[in-house]
């Protein structure tokens, strides 16, 4: 899902350089480079974390707007914000592992928009729980194709995401 965007970025960057140089076009450069399987695995993990961060951002905003005041509402908002920060930390560390040519160093991986969340706070917690479980399962599957050090990082992140289920449920309990 991130692939077309990255390819496009590369093509645009290359075409821009060619234009400045007065060349005929990107075709003169030959086929676009393909990412290695390692890079694709990392890109997928980055895209998934980007989506998770966006989902939590939306959840935090929705809870702030709809959650009932009081201890439970504050507990829910605090838990969602804390977990969002952990997903941001995951994303930062995953991005640090991707070594890109300088002109692509700030490329953003567009993983798509988060799905709409339910209207009520319990529904939001349920949706986040499902997302966390899916994320941990996906990482467990994808780390099989990662180089050793990245596999360790992905396993750690998967453990973190599996435990988020506990923290979310605790925050959402009466």
């Amino acid at each position, binding site marked *: 899902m991130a692939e077309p965007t*990255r390819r496009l970025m*590369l093509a645009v960057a*290359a075409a821009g350089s060619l234009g400045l140089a007065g060349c005929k076009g990107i075709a003169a*450069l*030959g*086929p*676009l*480079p*393909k*990412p*290695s399987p*390692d*890079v694709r*695995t*990392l890109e997928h993990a980055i895209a998934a974390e980007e989506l998770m961060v966006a989902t939590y951002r939306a959840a935090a905003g929705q809870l702030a707007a709809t959650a009932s005041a009081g201890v439970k509402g504050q507990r829910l908002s605090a838990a969602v914000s*804390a*977990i969002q*920060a*952990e997903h941001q*930390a*995951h994303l930062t*560390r995953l991005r*640090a*592992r*991707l*070594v*890109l*040519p300088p002109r*692509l160093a700030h490329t953003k991986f567009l993983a798509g928009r988060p799905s709409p969340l339910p209207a009520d706070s319990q529904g939001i917690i349920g949706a986040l729980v499902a997302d966390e479980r899916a994320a*941990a399962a996906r*990482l*467990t599957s994808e*780390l*099989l194709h*990662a*180089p*050793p*050090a*990245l*596999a*360790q*990082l*992905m*396993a*750690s*992140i*998967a*453990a*973190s995401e*599996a*435990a*988020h*289920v*506990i*923290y979310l449920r605790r925050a959402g309990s009466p």
Partner: protein
Amino acid sequence: MMAARRGSVAGGSGGSPSRASTAGGSGGSPSRASTAGGSGGSPSRASTVAALQTALAAEQAASYGYGVVGAHLTGTAFSIASADCVLHERARDALTRLITSLGATPRAAAAAYKLPIGVSSAADAARLAVDLEVEVVASYVDLAAVPDPRLRTLAAKNMQNAYVRAARWGAKSRPFPGLAP
């Protein structure tokens, strides 16, 4: 110039699976002693056996430690501790079989373990359970990097299960369980 690879992964695709080798800053604990537990064999086999031995040692310690945890709990908490203890004993036995299947000798458990904290109350027992589970998570990190995909999966799942148990016992959430901050 366009023939260059589009990107690469810091830390590389080869090299040692040891946590000390996680270049790019994923962190990791200090490297462990290189004790393969067997003689001869390929480097990957040796590192696999070493990773299994590391996980085994943590599961042995957890099996022992949960005995102390349970001794200070009653009711539902005691039942949960008992169930968690059984899970660690099963993991310990499974790791023992895996090490044997690779032609190596599983390290024997210690007769007793020095606990990281003194336990004299139910709250202490819960803290000890957290410590045991967090240590188990860290003990599987090396195994998550071995070439055998079944063992990687085992490591990842056991890390998740242990950290979920740690959370249930009251662990503070951390973004990178098992790795250095």
